[in-house]
């Protein structure tokens, strides 16, 4: 494998990412799947990097899940997106930062549509005004939250307490990176590194000391695929897609998986449990599952945040093997304690956790 070839591609796909003053829009589902991830992102941006990140209570769903499930028509989606822009405008911000990869893809798609079909934008402008009395201007910069962590990866490293290396051997952790499809597969030039060899997560992982694995099914869907899962009869496709990835990455002996999409960590994490229960098969080391992290969680870990404050106890695959390998300090007794010290209840043993 020739890394210079990849670098040439990465050079072709660099995007402009604003320096400060971000309007952050949360995901509909991430707070349920990985409840500490977005809070961790805000903590990193505000407390570690000193950036201004603003949220607005009137922000709503972007309709992405409904749109990609053929439930919400594009005209409705575009009007909702226009309203989000209006809310951003009235807040005095111009740099939009979606937490969700599907939202990021949707905003990108809508802006591209308006660029090519200006009349559509004017129609949407009229729809929005008729419905709400609002007007809007497009954002000057749209970046996914993982773009920001990529942009500030060196600053994070400078303040990091840990590296992604084995504390015993000094060897880099072997990392599978998986970007959400809507990050750059629709618009390669809108993602850091493009679509074929995306750099946004691999750049983060390598900067912090890890070694990224390029395995054959790297580009394959995580298993979410919207209708694969949302239509109950299709869920076998979802599971088989995830299984294909696990089978492909297993020989490379990854220590962990890093993701930037709401669905990817959910399915890569939970389906490992399902496969272990259905088939008795696991894909990680020592007969366990492969721990899965969001990019914010991984950033929080290297910065020395408490794993349980970030909600890592909500992962199906235990994070401890990675914490132990890096040497991250944590209190096992606090894993299932809430912020107020209340016992959250301990899950039953699972094959994936040994």
């Amino acid at each position, binding site marked *: 494998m020739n890394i210079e070839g990849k670098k040439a591609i990465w050079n072709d796909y660099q995007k402009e990412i604003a320096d400060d003053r971000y309007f952050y829009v949360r995901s509909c589902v991430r707070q349920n799947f990985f409840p500490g991830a977005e809070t961790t992102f805000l903590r990193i941006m505000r407390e570690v990097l000193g950036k201004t990140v603003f949220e607005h209570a009137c922000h709503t769903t972007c309709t992405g899940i409904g749109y990609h499930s053929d439930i919400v028509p594009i005209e409705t989606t575009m009007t909702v997106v226009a309203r989000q822009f209006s809310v951003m405008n009235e807040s005095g911000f111009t740099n939009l930062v979606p937490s969700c990869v599907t939202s990021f893809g949707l905003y990108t798609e809508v802006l591209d549509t308006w660029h090519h079909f200006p009349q559509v934008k004017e129609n949407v402008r009229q729809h929005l005004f008729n419905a709400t009395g609002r007007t809007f201007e497009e954002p000057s910069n749209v970046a996914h939250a993982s773009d920001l962590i990529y942009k500030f990866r060196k600053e994070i490293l400078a303040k990091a307490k840990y590296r992604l290396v084995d504390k015993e051997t000094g060897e880099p952790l072997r990392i599978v990176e998986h970007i959400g499809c809507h990050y750059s597969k629709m618009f390669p030039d809108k993602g850091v590194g493009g679509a074929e060899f995306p750099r946004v997560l691999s750049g983060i992982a390598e900067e912090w000391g890890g070694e990224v694995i390029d395995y*054959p099914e790297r580009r394959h869907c995580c298993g979410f695929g919207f209708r694969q899962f949302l239509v109950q009869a299709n869920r076998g496709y979802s599971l088989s897609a995830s299984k294909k990835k696990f089978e492909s990455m297993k020989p490379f002996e990854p220590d962990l998986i890093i993701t930037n999409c709401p669905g990817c960590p959910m399915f890569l994490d939970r389906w490992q449990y399902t496969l272990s229960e259905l088939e008795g098969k696991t894909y990680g080391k020592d007969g366990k599952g492969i721990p899965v992290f969001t990019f914010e969680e991984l950033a929080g870990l290297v910065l020395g945040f408490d794993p349980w404050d970030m909600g890592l106890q909500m992962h199906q695959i235990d994070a401890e093997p990675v914490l132990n390998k890096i040497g991250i300090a944590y209190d096992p007794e606090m894993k299932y304690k809430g912020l107020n010290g209340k016992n959250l209840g301990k899950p039953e043993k699972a094959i994936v956790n040994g």
Partner: protein
Amino acid sequence: MAAKSVIVIGGGIAGMEVSNQLSSLGYEVRLIEKNDQVGGKLLNWDRLFPTFRNAGEVLQRLQQKMDQREVIVDTNAEVTDVVKEKETFFVTVNHSVKYHADALVVATGFELFNAQRKEEYGYGIYDNVITSADLEKLFKSGGKLTNPMGKVPQRIAIVHCVGSRDSKVGNHYCSKVCCVTGVKQAIELQEQIPGVVVYCFYMDLRMYGEGFEELYRRAQEQHNIQFIRGRVSEVSETLDHSIQLKAEDTLAGRPLKMCVDLLVLMVGMEPGKGSVSVKNMLKLGTMDSGFLEPADVHLSRNVSSSKGIFMAGTAISPMSVNDTLENARSAAFEVHHYFQDID
């Protein structure tokens, strides 16, 4: 009266042949080549389709004719400026040397498509992904045929139309030579590696030339080359550095995934860098494809829109070796008619 003079820009086979023809017609010819020797892309090619003739033989014959006809050749020479005064062209080479001529022939050729632009194929990243030009160099070296990892490949896939007929890379045109090059190289691989299995992934096979269709039949009947109609969608590297590819077999209507030891990309042709430079200097037009635009695509293919400037070979469009040589002769005749004032 002194003989009319012609400057030919570009010393590939088109430039060599047009120089020979013009010289034999009695004109004073100067051939300007930017590299240190003439011969162009054919210098790196081993054997020619459909005959498997050594490409060096063709070059040798062209060179012999040039020597006999005393064509003046300037190598390591690049045209840096051209000024036309009345009917005479004043050509500056390497920003210093100046020549004059009564006509110019642009024979600046083509560039091979840079396969790295088809990112999904991993050329320049995965060790066992090479191009048709790389394979030809391997053949030409005459050594044991191994993949870049040093292993004698037992399963090889050839991908046709890389950089041709592809909206994604902005090339809608057919490069004409890749189909039959793929067939030729598949046969050569099968002949050189006992037991090798070769798969050709194609959109359709355009066997337009003399002997091409016969070669295609021979590949199937005598060499058991497997032709699969479908484009490869993505390529990855496995743990043992073999290449995993995904494609759709559009005849069977099924997706497929396979591993091979070597992947060969049939790279197409793109307008030559020299053409871009010269067309700006000479203010020549280009077609949508980027190749030079003739005054009339049917009746004056070697004539540019500027009086006294002619074109030959793959500067005009993708061509095979045979077509290039014939086109060069045609260009020589156009120049001759121009000097003789024959319409």
